């Protein structure tokens, strides 16, 4: 397959997505804004008040294109997908392993090791680029802490201990996060990690990017024939895509954190593009969401060398590849899950 599959994002309030023969058409105020042949799409993401006609939904279902309905802040409300395919034996094995504390611990350890490695690389990179001695100190200190935490994971056999270590490391990481913000530090320094609702601009931006990443990871799990909702690090909870969240851990720094910092530091996202709600919740306006989505799609197209496939792949393919690595681990072809650790 040589067509790069794309995601159609609709963020304009009052837009309609309808079917026109073999294409999807986005109509805004009775004007066709965009017509896309269905074969070029992998999924459709409709944010907020967007109308998708039954005809459009039918075309997507026939073509195996998932339709996601999300709130404006990116929380998934509903997903319309073709009946699940893949191998039921693989899913059964996934459930069996997820019930086994030893297997949970071993997978959780690998996932968090990958995450911490990638977080550490981000801190080191920002430290190299920073001109400020105090910031460099903060960043290398935090990077050192993460480096120390990784070998400790080796000894952990259960998922709870791993979760504890991850929590400690995340606190250190987010405490140092502000030192990676170079422009508009007053407005964009996060006060730790807050969510539901995010209480500052950086957290609003991160929450939105994490939501996008969750969808991509959910799609990746489903494409590999896995059940996105049965996780190893994340405990089962109704409506929570546990395995997708597991898979996402190693990609947070690569596809979300680094992008959020770049958007702020390059001033592609401005402080004025955020809205403050009663109770302190912060969200982005429509123009900012569009800018973030565009940047996210562009970032996914950037090519990196996959560390053990030794192949150039677009960043956006990594969750799909890693989901397959995960499936290979479940099938017994790989003794442990290998997270994707990039050098940069």
């Amino acid at each position, binding site marked *: *397959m*040589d*067509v*790069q599959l*794309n*995601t*159609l*994002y*609709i*963020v*304009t309030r009052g*837009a309609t997505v309808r079917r*026109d*023969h*073999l*294409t999807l058409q*986005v109509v*805004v105020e009775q004007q066709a*804004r*965009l*017509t*896309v*042949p269905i*074969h*070029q799409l992998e999924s459709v993401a409709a944010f907020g008040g967007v109308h998708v006609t039954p005809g459009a939904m039918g075309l997507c279902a026939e073509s195996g294109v998932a339709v996601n309905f999300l709130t404006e802040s990116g929380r998934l409300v509903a997903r319309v997908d073709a009946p699940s395919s893949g191998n039921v034996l693989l899913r059964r094995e996934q459930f069996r392993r997820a019930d086994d504390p030893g297997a949970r611990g071993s997978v959780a350890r690998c996932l968090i090791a990958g995450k911490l490695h990638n977080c550490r690389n981000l801190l080191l990179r920002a430290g190299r680029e920073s001109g400020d001695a105090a910031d460099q100190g903060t960043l290398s200190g935090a990077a050192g802490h993460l480096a120390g935490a990784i070998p400790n994971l080796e000894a952990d056999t259960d998922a709870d201990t791993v979760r504890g270590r991850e929590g400690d490391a995340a606190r250190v990481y987010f405490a140092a996060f502000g030192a990676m913000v170079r422009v508009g530090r007053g407005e964009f320094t996060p006060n730790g990690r807050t969510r539901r609702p995010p209480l500052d601009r950086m957290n609003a931006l991160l929450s939105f990017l994490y939501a996008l990443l969750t969808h991509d990871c959910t799609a990746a799990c489903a494409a590999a024939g896995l059940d996105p909702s049965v996780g190893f690090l994340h405990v089962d909870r109704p409506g929570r895509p546990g395995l997708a969240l597991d898979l996402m851990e190693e990609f947070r720094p690569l596809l979300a954190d680094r992008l959020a910092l770049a958007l702020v530091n390059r001033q592609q996202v401005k402080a004025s593009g955020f809205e403050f709600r009663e109770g302190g919740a912060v969200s982005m306006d429509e123009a900012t969401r*569009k800018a973030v*989505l*565009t940047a*996210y*799609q*562009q970032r996914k197209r950037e090519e990196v060398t996959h560390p053990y496939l030794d192949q150039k792949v677009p960043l956006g393919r990594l969750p799909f590849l890693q989901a397959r690595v995960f499936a290979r681990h479940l099938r017994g072809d790989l003794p442990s899950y290998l997270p994707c650790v990039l050098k940069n």
Partner: protein
Amino acid sequence: MKVLVVYDVSTSDSNGPRRLRRVAQACQDFGQRVQKSVFECSVGETEWVRLRTRLLAEMDERRDSVRFYFLEADVRVEHHGAGEPWNLDGPLVV
């Protein structure tokens, strides 16, 4: 692969307008109109076979012509003036 589809459909006979519409629709289903009878299509092998078969079936060999230009991956396109098309391989955010 990227294919540029260019056609000329004769509308002088009674069936002409119908053929023109159907040829245009086939192109629309697989690509994007960049000028009146010029379409850029990003297609995989399957879509390419479907598009080609459909076009050849719709056209009238004696009156119309269709030309396919196969574009290299690093093709460079400049657009000036009205009706700049979307890059369907780039970010799609409406």
